[in-house]
């Protein structure tokens, strides 16, 4: 559990030189759509063609073009043929460098790889983008921008590289890949030729496991402290365990207090020790944390327990959000359980590097 202690999102360096790449404002997206630039849709892959690539002049182009314009004006005023040649040379070289820039981007395909590993809130999530060359030309000087991170990428002819970047997570739910930018300044550094793309990538963000969580009940009994009451209710009920309410259960046996405490989200049926259910299996049950007021804290506790159960190597079942996951073990099972927690009510779907608000403080 200690190893899983969540890293708090680190403070960003105040002026790290590189400004974070932000996705364009809605107005700019509208304008660029009117201009025929098709970005903004989440897609699994994108092949850069003329509709995808935007060629934007840098400030240097403006000043150089001003210089050439002045040269052209005075050349025509004084009929200076060498001046004409210089001005036209300048303009055509500006244009040609823009073409070179464009051709160094065309035919590059970017593909979003499924997110390999989910993470807990506060950890960083790793996204992977494949950059593939399709036209049989070596591509140099490509730069992939994702948030504050920049990657210099060069791809060989008909080859493929994978770029991995990390995005901080702050809230349970799911994290969507940010809009990323593939750009190049090749060859003259005068044109910022780029493509904006929002990859169709999404990763689950599990709740933050609670620090110093009390041990899970079953684990505790096994570790020698056994024999103590497994009664989760603190009001002396003879019934010792609960299970998910099933149709046909007597209303008398429904744990109404739990129902009320969880705002009606957990409807459990009390079960006697002598009931049909075997108690050999370890169970992580939402009802056990029903007494915790704060919803996220409940999820944190459950998360910590799930990890405890997983680490113990025993089979364990999970009951939460009206779903019962039958006892088994293994990372897939853990993922299923944690995913259930991640998607519980109150989950947030956040685009990476955006809406970055500090996570709510848990009440003390």
């Amino acid at each position, binding site marked *: 559990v200690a190893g899983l202690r969540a890293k708090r999102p680190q403070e960003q360096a105040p002026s790290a030189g590189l400004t974070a790449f932000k996705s364009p404002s809605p107005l700019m997206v509208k304008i660029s759509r009117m201009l025929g630039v098709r970005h903004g849709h989440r*897609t699994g892959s994108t092949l850069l063609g003329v509709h995808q690539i935007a060629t934007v002049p840098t400030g240097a182009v403006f000043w150089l073009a001003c210089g050439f314009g002045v040269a052209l004006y005075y050349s025509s005023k004084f009929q200076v043929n060498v001046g004409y040649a210089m001005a036209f040379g300048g303009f055509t070289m500006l244009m040609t460098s823009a073409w070179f820039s464009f051709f160094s981007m065309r035919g590059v395909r970017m593909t979003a790889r499924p997110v390999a590993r989910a993470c807990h809130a506060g950890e960083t999530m790793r996204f992977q983008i494949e950059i593939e060359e399709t036209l049989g030309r070596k591509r140099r000087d490509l730069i992939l921008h994702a948030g504050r991170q920049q990657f*210099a990428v060069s791809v060989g002819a008909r080859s493929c590289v994978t770029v991995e970047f990390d995005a901080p997570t702050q809230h349970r739910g799911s994290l969507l890949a940010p809009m990323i930018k593939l750009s190049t300044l090749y060859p003259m*550094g005068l044109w910022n030729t780029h493509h904006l793309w929002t990859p169709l990538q999404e990763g689950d963000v599990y709740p933050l496991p609670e620090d110093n969580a009390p041990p899970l009940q079953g684990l505790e009994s096994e570790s020698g402290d056994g024999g103590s009451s497994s009664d989760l209710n603190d009001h002396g009920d003879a019934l010792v365990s609960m299970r998910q309410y099933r149709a046909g259960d007597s209303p008398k046996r429904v744990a109404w207090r739990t129902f009320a405490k969880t705002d009606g989200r957990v409807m459990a049926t009390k079960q006697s020790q002598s009931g049909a259910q075997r108690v050999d299996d370890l169970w992580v049950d939402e009802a056990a944390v029903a007494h915790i007021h704060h919803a996220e804290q409940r999820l944190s506790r459950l998360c910590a327990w799930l990890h405890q159960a997983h680490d113990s190597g025993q089979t364990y079942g999970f009951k939460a959000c009206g779903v019962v996951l039958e006892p088994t073990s293994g990372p897939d099972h853990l993922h299923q359980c944690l995913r259930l927690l991640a998607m519980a009510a109150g989950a947030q779907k956040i685009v990476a590097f955006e809406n970055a608000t500090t996570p709510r403080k848990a009440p003390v």
Partner: protein
Amino acid sequence: VNRSSSANDDNRVTEIEPKVGDRVLSVHPASMAIMYLAVILSTVPFGSTVGHMIAYFPSASIALVLLAGFFWFKKIEPTPFMKKMSWVVQFPLIMCLAFLLMVGFTISGNPQNHFGLLPLAAFCCNMLSFMVLTKPAPSRMGFMGGCVTVLLLIQVAVKQTLLDSIAAALVFFLVWCSMASRHATSPQNPRDNLGFFKTLVMSVKRTGLVLCVSLPMMIAFFLLFPRLPLGAVQEERPSQSSGSTGLSNSLTLGSITELKSSQEPAFRAIFKGDFPTEPSLYWRSIVLDKLKGQTWLSSTQMSGAFAVPRTTEEADKDGKKPEPPLSIQKSRGTAMPYGEIIDPNNRGQQIAVLDGTENNVVVSFNNNSVALAPYVDGTYSLRPTIKALRQGVVKVHAIGAVAYTRPEWSTLRPDNLGEFTDLPANFNPKTQAFGKQLRSKLDKPESVIDEVMSMIRRENFRYTLKPPALGQQAIDDFFFKERAGFCEHYASTFVVLMRSAGIPARLVTGYLSGPVKNGEIAVSQADAHAWAEVWLDGKGWVRQDPTASIDPSRVDPDATNARLESTPSGFLGFLNVTWRKNATQAEMFWRNTMLEFDSGTQSKIFSEMGVSKFGTPLLAAAAMLLMAGVAVAWQYLGDRWLRRIGRFGKRGLSDLLERSCARAGIERPAGTSWREVLALSERRLSKADWQELKALVEAHEQITYGAQGSDASAVKELSRRIRRFRPRAIGLASKMPR
């Protein structure tokens, strides 16, 4: 596709780590070095006027204060290395700045040119000097590049010889290299800059590549861009204030030695009709008839407008109304009693005209050809060339002004003939006494002339380009003591002798060339010559060349080869004889092709192509639009073409469907079937949209997996249907983040 990154050496991904307080993509030192070199090279030619800076201090200092305020306001940081670097590096930088500022001051203080090119040059110099001291940013490097371009333009506007143009082109190339190396980072480790020399090589390679590709387009633009019609240029081109080579308005003994050593071409004459067949031709330029101290000057100074309307006869002949003449009000020509200098563009340089030519003369000032009509009432009219060319007149290609002469003027007796025998009393008394003695012995002026000529031939007068130094009374020293000199010595001595003998005489400077071959002749500055003219009653002004009287055995053998063996100044001095010849020919070629290109040449090209009836501007505009269209189409149609030949990724039906669904926020994550997407999207689409999606998915399945295989027309039909499918999200789905 090769998925493993290790298999291909070119595959590389490196994270660029930003250093705090430092931009990774800031300007590379090599780029800065190249740009500073370009700045220095482009501003040095303006430094020739630095000496006058003090007078312009007030206006320049106001500009400085304003600029400093601007930089302070914009919070532009000083160059970081100005603090770190030792004074060894700082000192040249500060000197560079001071130099630039002085140049800027000097030019900006020029009171005559407030809206011309020179204030612009001053602005560029001032801005560049500030850029040297401020922290370089990528866009500011572009600004410096623009300033350097403008300065280069001003230089070529002043002087566009082949060498100057090559120099300007090289500096221009440097600007581009600097641009290309601004962002140079090492491919192995992008967080570090590439090494200095590697960056230089890289930038030269890339600039060369881009230049090679853009060269054809540049040539096309150059040929097609509409030029102003001939003679429409009214603005005075900025001229060089110093260092012009050519005949000057005055003559002092010894000054022509420099001219002799100059290999620069003076002018080229093309005869459209008959051409003179004499073995040697005298091209007259300036008549010097007034002596001031040791210097010969021209007596008549005329200023003001030189243009007159065309004569009515000429207008009647053409059947058109007289055109308003081009007035050259800024011209400061010097009028001669006969022979005229008009210099609208390049003041201080003159051009000679074949002695005794009666035709109209067409002169080209660099590339602005004008025709010079006959002298009427002390003025000349200038008209565009083409008409004059049609009349089949002499065409003189030249830099500079023109002299025009008519034979009948040489017989017009000047009113002030007495002034042509004036000599100051204390001016070379021995020579004057000798002249008077001759006249008293011989009666007729002709016999005096013959006596002097035979004396030069008889006695030990030598012709040399390296004459010994002469004293205060230069002509006395020459005539009685040294007896060695060149045309200038002989001509001026001859004039002094004639005047003291009471014969009206004057000095003429110009060029002495060989015969005309095939109607064409090129005259260089090495052909500069001086001779004399004497007034003989009944004959008018008669040319006398005492230099020609020297016995050939006493001509310095070096002098005959002087044109090629003397060391010219500048670049040509480094070349041997053969290469110097080649360089001169190249210069001529450059002048005739590049500098002569004008609207006339352009319309000739169009008429040869048979499209001249549409008009030059229209054709040029159409051609350039066509080029731009091709350029854009190359990008847009390129995708289609690549897709057609199968080299560009095919956009399949599934891709199209994904794109359509993405509009409504419905995504198909990797590994999901369309059936699953269909099931998930039922509540997120309107009924109609969902039904359509279902139909599309089914059709897609049918085509992709169906037993009968895919039919091309069915695929086309379905892709069209998918393109038309534009679902809209409903309910909560429309508010989901994407």
